[in-house]
């Protein structure tokens, strides 16, 4: 029930170079759970677009299916949006980009949407180095279908129903580097100070820019260890064997500076180890980036920030040498060989 928020403009809000205040970049009211990490990321996108003086209508937002994939409705309401089918956003974005190379393409997906059903398309959009920003709102579970493990769930972690996940967890950032992505970053939904600049950098990158954002699902990551009263409620739900109570949570935020480490406490009392160490690797050197990521993995840390970048990527349009004039703007005169040519073609087939 995404209804438009009354567009009341605060006259005194600061304006960007286009004369727009930040609320101009907002979308309709979110229908996600209170405190959902995804909403924080939407706010980051709004902030980045505002700071970058982006004309919203020159940006197209695309997504698959999931709570995360709903978010494009909650930012940039002056942009065209496409909430496609589950796991297939990359192909839709590829077609859209081919049709008009002049727009900015922002794809939003979830870990289920990307790492499970969408894995094939994800791998190949990376491979084609499509000029787009691809953000995964990664919560390690299927939020919209009520909390099953996704392929990025940490091995050994417990899900809502108390089952322990035994499978290898897919590290999307590391995978993207392996596949030759030209921009790979990682961050945390609650860390705006880091996230906003990364989104801006990604939008500036003239190739495939991937950001894996850890974004806690406040509703389906409630494992034992949380507050007494909350336990009470969970017991109540277990007993009634209905999952019908979703407490309102506050969004988890954090902020810590370059060169430090931080462990963030989640609603369920568990901790996430983030590492923003002063980069001891060369993000322009693929091998060194791979090593950094692999080493962090061994130490059970999540490396955040810009992991790898190829500053001069060759995007899909350049590879296939398409006209600089957007294909969707070409006229009959430019496209149709006409009747004379057809006559000669007919002749060849006599």
């Amino acid at each position, binding site marked *: 029930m995404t209804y438009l928020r009354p567009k009341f403009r605060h006259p005194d809000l600061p304006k960007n170079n286009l004369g727009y205040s930040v609320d101009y970049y907002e979308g309709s009211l979110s229908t996600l759970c209170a405190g959902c990490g995804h909403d924080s990321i939407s706010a980051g996108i709004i902030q980045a677009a505002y700071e970058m003086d982006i004309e919203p209508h020159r940006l197209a937002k695309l997504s698959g299916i999931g709570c995360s994939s709903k978010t494009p409705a909650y930012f940039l309401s002056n942009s*065209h949006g496409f909430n496609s089918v589950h796991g297939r956003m990359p192909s839709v974005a590829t*077609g*859209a980009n081919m049709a008009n190379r002049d727009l900015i393409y922002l794809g939003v997906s979830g870990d289920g949407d990307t790492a499970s059903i969408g894995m094939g398309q994800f791998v190949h959009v990376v491979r084609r180095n499509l000029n787009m920003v691809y953000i995964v709102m990664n919560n390690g579970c299927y939020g919209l279908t009520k909390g099953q493990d996704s392929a990025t769930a940490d091995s050994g972690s417990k899900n809502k129903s108390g089952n322990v996940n035994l499978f290898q967890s897919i590290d999307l950032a590391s995978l993207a580097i392996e596949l030759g992505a030209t921009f790979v970053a990682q961050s945390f939904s609650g860390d705006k100070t880091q996230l906003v600049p990364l989104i801006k950098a990604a939008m500036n990158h003239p190739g495939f820019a991937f950001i894996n954002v850890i974004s806690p699902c406040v509703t389906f990551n409630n494992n034992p260890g949380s507050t007494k009263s909350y336990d009470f409620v969970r017991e109540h739900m277990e007993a009634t064997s209905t999952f019908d109570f979703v407490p309102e949570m506050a969004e988890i935020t954090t902020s810590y500076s370059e060169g430090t480490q931080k462990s963030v406490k989640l609603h369920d009392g568990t901790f996430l180890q983030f590492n923003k160490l002063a980069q001891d690797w060369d993000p322009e050197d693929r091998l060194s980036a791979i090593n950094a990521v692999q080493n962090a993995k061994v130490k059970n840390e999540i490396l955040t920030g810009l992991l790898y970048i190829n500053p001069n990527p060759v995007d899909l349009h350049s590879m296939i040498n398409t006209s600089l004039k957007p294909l*969707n703007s070409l006229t009959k005169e430019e496209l*149709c060989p006409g*009747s004379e040519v057809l006559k000669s073609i007919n002749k060849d*087939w*006599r």
Partner: protein
Amino acid sequence: MSVNQVKINDFVIRFANVNGTGSASANYLFCKSIFRMGVPVTPKNIFPSNIQGLPTWYEVRVSEKGYLGRREGIDIMVSVNPQSMLADVGNVRTGGYFLYDSSKPLHSQYIRDDIHYIGIPLMEMCNDAFTDPRQRQLFKNIIYVGALSALLNIDFKVFESLLAEQFAGKEKLIAPNIKSLQIGVDYIHEHYKDPIDIRVESRDLVGDSIMIDGNTACGLGAVYGGATVAAWYPITPSTSVIESFMSFSDEYRINPETGKRNVAIIQAEDELAAIGMVIGANWNGARSFTATSGPGLSLMNEFLGLAYFAEIPTVLIDVQRIGPSTGMPTRTQQSDTLEAAYASHGDTKHILLFPSTPKECFEMTANAFDLTEQLQTPVIVMTDLDLGMNDHMSKPFQWDDHREYKRGKVLDADALEGIERFGRYLDVDGDGIPYRTYPGTHPTKGSYFTRGTSRDEYAVYTENGDDYVRNMDRLMKKWNTAKGYVPAPHLYQEENLSTYGVLFFGTSEYPTKEAIDLLQAEGVQLDAIRIKSFPFNETVEDFIHSHDKVFVVEQNRDAQMRSLLMIELGINPEKLIPVLNYDGLPITADQIVNSIKSGI
């Protein structure tokens, strides 16, 4: 044999080869030469689903009367494949000819006493003439073409001109071909004094017709139709549609100044991605299409439902092959009809076009882009392996330079200025077709959120049942509107001459027309109609209602078109008599005649 028995320009010849041995080009040379003599021909390539070493056949029907369908009975068998020789011998009609490589003696098991044998030492002569083993294999084929030309009386000059054209710029290749042809000719003249009772004579029966396959025509149609984004995944028999689009794009879609391409062709990772790209590109205002076959169509089901419900133009060319599943990838069928018509879960209906000739492949592909943008729903061009991969005699293609692309109801910035609130799914004109906008059109107006979930007229998400029903009913209204847009069926008579009718579509046209003549000769009069599109318009309805019995000719097991007629027009099934063939070879006039006779 006395002259009055001689068959002129009326025979079927089949070449039995091993695939990968260079026979196709030789056989094509033979076929084309007859075409050049002004005599109607139809070649059919019957090939295996592998790359090298399995049996492959090339069947050419020559018909003075201009019948372009298949018919039973092989008059001449050119047998150069030991693997299939036993079956090949058996397939020659009594009194027919069996041409074989006599370099080795013919084993007794291949001897029938009711057919003629023509032995030619192909290998032997070829080895004498060429040293390179590859050329030895290659030109063996050209030699039997030479021999046939002598037997059938094909004008040698025709070969010379054909080769001259073919190898323009590569003249050094001409000599060995001529040489090989000559070897065959000379051998026949030397060893077969009296002519056989089958002969080719020059005529003026093909006019300005061309010889081309349907897939090439579809590819060209996409170029003329203004397609700029093609996404595909290789699959037989649809691959050459895109290959054709590629090569014509190389010629006609490169900007001479910039050298840049006015087209983007993406080989996708699979069919789901291919159709997804097509939908994304069309959503963004480019004309975009893909081509596939059965298995790909099945994989595209979910996306087709999205395009139907979110109303996004989509052009899909389905070159049908034998199903179910992987089936027989190199055999033809019309068995995706039902799947295509109602592809995807939920209440969905899709527009289908049914070309019968390469010319229609060209036109319907080009028109599909107008239709899909006017109606904002997927349009599927239903062709098949027979039409797509075989050469067909066809009227030359035409294009009206005054023709403009019909882009449908799209609002530009100015139009949006004049609008209070844009409603993506509002039925402004009462025809069920809403207005759309391209991304990037206007800073503050016209943006909307496309989705496969239910939404109201303003593209706002809704779970309200009335909103949903209103939208679904509008889609039905649009479906009825479409009946006025899609090509009308072809009626073969001014007014009814019979209480019996025959209804057909696609590649069943030629054999059915021949069947109608054959039946008429036997005193059975039939009215005829050819369906060119789905949904059906009243003409189809009237035709059926105005006949007691209508024979429905189709190339599948389950009479799928008949099902569509019942469902969409509410026709009483008793009226619709199925005439079916589904063995993977194009249906023949004989098969149609027989089942119509038994159905009357």
